[in-house]
């Protein structure tokens, strides 16, 4: 089942595989949801671990799966602490304005700390062949790239934003180690600028094309309706509402096409610029394939009232991981690990609660 191509004597290209099944994951997903409700949310820590165990355990490289080994109790502790902070934060606004401001300001140094520690936690409990990923990111750097750097946004009228994303990706990837093998990101900032500009152009173009087609198809009726509506502004006109909301949906679709381009362009370029030791990763997702998977997934989820979520996730993961491969120059059998102190899960959980998305 592995697609192994021998390119030369010291490097071979191996593809990732995702072997999850919708039928298996559906049962895990629904039990997770029900038990989370029944335990008033406490089970969510177990749900997270079991989901990750299932997902990681089905990612294969060279016939060996990844493994997720975090303990639910650690995640629960972190979650409760994060919940406590969150409750204090929301209540403080009602009782003391000063406390609210203090807590808000204190979030600034806390956010990078949460980012560093959640990356550490996630790495530590992700194993491949008994070797964990170690994250050695520095707090001050995190503070620099996730807080301080934003000072430049108003000064550069936002032109720096793609560069910020580039620096953040570089910070996240460059401090990761697989055992003793350093993971390095050799991408360029220009990737992010191209992605930004191209996705904007694509959004505008597709919006123009879509609305143009829509208007050409119903032009006679449309302008008539528009005219009628302006003349009788007070009366609510059902056809005009349908037309306007139809255009609205079409604009959302064109925005989606633009952001899909951004996502795929970034994923392909960033992953393809990652080196683990001497071995280079490669990602080759296809725009059309991605958009068709995303749209059909969205439709299935909507029409199944959410029950298709597990199927959709498995389907996306299958495509995503089959698009990634590694040109192997290191001997996977001879990787040694380095020791790291215990890492508290609180930081990762605080990150989850405040909805900080730090993956790529």
């Amino acid at each position: 089942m592995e697609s192994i191509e021998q390119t030369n004597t010291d490097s071979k290209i191996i593809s990732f595989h995702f072997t999850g099944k919708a039928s298996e994951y559906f049962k895990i997903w629904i039990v997770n949801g029900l038990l989370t409700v029944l335990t008033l949310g406490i089970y969510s820590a177990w749900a997270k671990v079991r989901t990750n165990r299932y997902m990681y355990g089905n990612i294969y490289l060279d016939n060996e799966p990844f493994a997720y080994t975090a303990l639910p109790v650690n995640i629960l502790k972190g979650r409760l602490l994060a919940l406590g902070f969150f409750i204090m934060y929301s209540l403080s606004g009602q009782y003391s304005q000063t406390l609210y401001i203090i807590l808000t300001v204190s979030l600034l140094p806390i956010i990078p700390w949460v980012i560093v520690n959640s990356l550490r936690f996630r790495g530590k409990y992700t194993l491949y062949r008994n070797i964990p990923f170690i994250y050695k990111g520095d707090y001050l750097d995190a503070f620099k790239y996730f807080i301080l750097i934003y000072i430049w946004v108003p000064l550069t009228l936002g032109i720096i934003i793609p560069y910020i994303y580039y620096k953040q990706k570089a910070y996240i990837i460059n401090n990761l180690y697989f055992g003793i093998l350093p993971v390095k990101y050799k991408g360029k900032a220009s990737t992010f600028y191209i992605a930004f500009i191209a996705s904007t152009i694509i959004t505008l173009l597709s919006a123009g094309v879509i609305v143009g087609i829509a208007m050409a198809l119903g032009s006679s009726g449309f302008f008539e309706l528009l005219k009628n509506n302006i003349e009788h502004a007070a009366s609510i006109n059902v056809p005009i509402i349908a037309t306007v909301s139809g255009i609205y949906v079409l604009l959302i679709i064109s925005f989606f096409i633009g952001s899909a381009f951004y996502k795929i362009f970034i994923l392909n370029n960033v992953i393809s610029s990652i080196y683990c030791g001497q071995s280079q990763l490669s990602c080759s997702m296809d725009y059309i394939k991605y958009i068709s998977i995303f749209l059909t997934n969205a439709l299935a989820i909507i029409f199944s009232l959410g029950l298709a979520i597990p199927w959709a996730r498995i389907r996306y993961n299958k495509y995503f991981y089959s698009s990634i491969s590694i040109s192997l120059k290191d001997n996977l059998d001879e990787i040694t690990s380095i020791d790291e102190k215990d890492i508290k899960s609180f930081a990762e959980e605080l990150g989850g609660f405040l909805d900080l998305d730090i993956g790529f």
Partner: protein
Amino acid sequence: MTLTSGSNITGTLYNKGISTPHTATLYYFDNGDIIIETESTTKKLHISSISISPRVANTQRQIIMPDGDMFTTHDNNAVDAMIAKISPQQKNTIQSLLYYLESHISAIAALIVVSIIAVFIFIKFIFPAIVTHIAFSIPTSTLHLISEKTVEYLDNQFFTTTQLPQARILTINAQFKEFIATIPDKDNYTFTLYFRHSNFIGPNAFALPDGTFIITDDFVKLIQHKQELFTILAHETAHVVYRHGVRNILLNSGLLVIAIAIFGDVVSTTTIGLPLLLIHNGYSREFERQADAFAINYCKKNHISGKHFVNLYKRLQQKAPTNIPSLLSTHPSDEERLSSFMAIDNK
């Protein structure tokens, strides 16, 4: 030491800190001893010293040893058989129960039924009971503060000073005092009546948690009889003494917090919004029924005909007709309310 039948598991052994895989076989014995053999090495340990990862579908299991070595295998059934055979105390853990749930569709169906019943009981009984308990432990000073702030807000947003003639105000005020004197619980609240004018709100009369009543000019104009005023005041008094106002706030915000905490990861807030609105309207309708029951009881005790409520209500409907479907409305349907008031006179 005797080898029991079928008592071995094939897998891979990794030594601590190095990724070299060694094809290995794990043998286990009735007394709990375990031997892991590779081509070149043999390890001997006891079942009590190893940690076996929980089973999730058919993903690879990890058996982690005290020295940091790891044995991995895809033979989940063999691992489960080993646990059942030589470490039965590990068999009935939460994790193995979870695997049972996740692999039996009938268990999942049962869990769905249990969940629906539990959610229903929670929404219908437990949560309102907790909220009621909290609402009645709120000190009167807090109720007073809430009401004061509400009046301040309403005055800023909607109300201007009353435009009623002074004589009318004096009459209504005297009738209000007369009404309050008949309320047994009057000492716990500071019953006062405010007259306000509003172009937006129209005919309306309502009570705030501490017993402050606000009545709009348009509403006063609808009143043709003292008894009519009493029926409305009785209804609103019920909201005060049952603390419906604060209970409403607590129910609404509490439910939202719980829903976001549980479903926040899964679905968007807008998806939660509609079911919450329906549940919340259910609570509100319950309060209105309770207030109507209180008013009906009051009428019976003080020999007030239900016609007074019905007449005032019909005049109000003409002024401000409402056409909200019952599921979305906070008040019970008109026919339901009016017929229960009409029933007063039948006895």
